[in-house]
């Protein structure tokens, strides 16, 4: 039931191994893992780097609340949320969310739910660097809409 905010890269196979074989039984029948990556282009301009700023303290509190909500809504045997901060390059890993359950749909829905809430509630901000300079990424109405589904 891990929540990690870190400047370091993560290894998806470590996260998956924890979900697949939890410290305590039961082991799950279904594991869904989502990874978000730095995109390579913005409006046809190559992204040379990205900086992720966050609000230490509030970030962890919000991520833990989202994790707890997911665990309350679905019968999960494990949840992992890892989000990176600092400077990242194109195709770098930004975020991983994993949810394990006895039930396939519970693992899909929980991972999807966590990402939708993380996108709209967790205090992270992206600044993208292109040949055009640095630009704060704008929030998207589609993300708010995605959250309201749940």
């Amino acid at each position, binding site marked *: 039931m891990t929540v990690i905010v870190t400047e370091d890269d993560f290894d998806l196979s470590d996260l998956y191994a924890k979900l697949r074989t939890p410290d305590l039984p039961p082991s799950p029948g279904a594991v869904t893992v989502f990874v978000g990556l730095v995109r390579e282009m913005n409006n046809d301009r190559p992204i040379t780097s990205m900086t992720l700023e966050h*609000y230490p*303290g509030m970030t962890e509190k919000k991520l833990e609340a989202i994790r707890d909500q997911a665990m309350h809504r679905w019968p999960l045997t494990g949840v992992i949320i890892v*989000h990176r901060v600092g400077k990242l390059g194109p195709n770098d890993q930004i975020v991983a969310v994993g949810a394990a359950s006895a039930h396939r749909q519970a693992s899909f829905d929980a991972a999807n739910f966590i990402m939708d809430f993380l*996108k709209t509630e967790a205090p992270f901000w992206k600044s993208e660097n292109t040949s055009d300079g640095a630009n704060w990424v704008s929030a998207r109405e589609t993300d708010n809409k995605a959250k309201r589904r749940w």
Partner: protein
Amino acid sequence: MNIRYFAWLREHTGVSSETLTYDPRWTSVADLVADLKTKSDGHAKALADMTLVRIAINYDYVDIDHKLSDGDEVAFFPPVTGG
């Protein structure tokens, strides 16, 4: 009170945090914002359109009419864009 700014609000104000002495006339965040806007042109610019700004008090999201208490940490930032 501790005031925090993030992302482009931090860039406009030029500070990531600042400490203010609590003023009992501040009944809501809106009163605090009105005073903060007088601190500098950068503050005025950062807080010019509060429909673009999200507010958190002690790590929880609040509306602009939320009441303030001495010792609160008040943060101003744009809609979040992580993930």
